[in-house]
């Protein structure tokens, strides 16, 4: 899933090195320096890519790659995929 996330994150960050070394520990704001307006784009792109809906409570926690993966996996499991 990290590969798919990397594709989604690429247009929204200038931090090439952090993107190249993307791991579960990567922080969208601290490491990739994605701003709040672009973080919405990331959330929308993740929804579209995985065919899920991310509610506000989940979005509030979506600040790292690890959190994003957990949210996507939970939503996919909830929808029986």
């Amino acid at each position, binding site marked *: 899933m990290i590969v798919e996330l990397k594709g989604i994150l690429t247009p929204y960050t200038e931090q090439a090195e952090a993107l190249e070394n993307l791991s579960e520990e990567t922080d969208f704001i601290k490491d990739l320096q994605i*701003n*709040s307006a672009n973080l919405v784009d990331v959330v929308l792109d993740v929804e579209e890519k995985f065919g899920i809906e991310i509610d*506000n409570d989940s*979005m*509030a926690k979506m600040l790292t790659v690890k959190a994003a993966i957990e949210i996507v996996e939970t939503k996919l499991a909830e929808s029986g995929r």
Partner: protein
Amino acid sequence: MIIMAPEPTTMLWLLWSMKESAYKVLNRNTGKREYNPSGLVCSELKVNQSEATGNVSYGDNVFFVKTEISDQRIYSVAAHTVIAVEGLTSYHMHNTAGYMDKFAMARPGYILKKEISGLPVVVELQTGRNLAASVSHHGRYLAVTYSGSLLLKD
């Protein structure tokens, strides 16, 4: 509110910018990290062609926010009191990898650096004071805001 506004795009980014500025204070004071734009509520909004003022609340916290509106940018600053808002200094520049060095060159007597925590601080060289600072960016644009009265504890 956004759709009914004379300029919906400006209103959208005005509200977003106000919320963002309040969140930055909240994050700084509490260390809490949360991406919850709808949890921040704008009120008392007064808007004219070049400026807006208003409050943003989050739970029991109320922040006073002042926004500069132009065709180039919508930029908000927030603090717990109106006086603190007025005491903030903002410097607008291009978003480049070397923005910290450029800031120091443009503002003699001040340097911008990041704490170990990742939070920015402006050091006033003459006094050695550490001034609470905030850096924001969007595309090619970057701004540094700092306060002469809000000091960081060592």
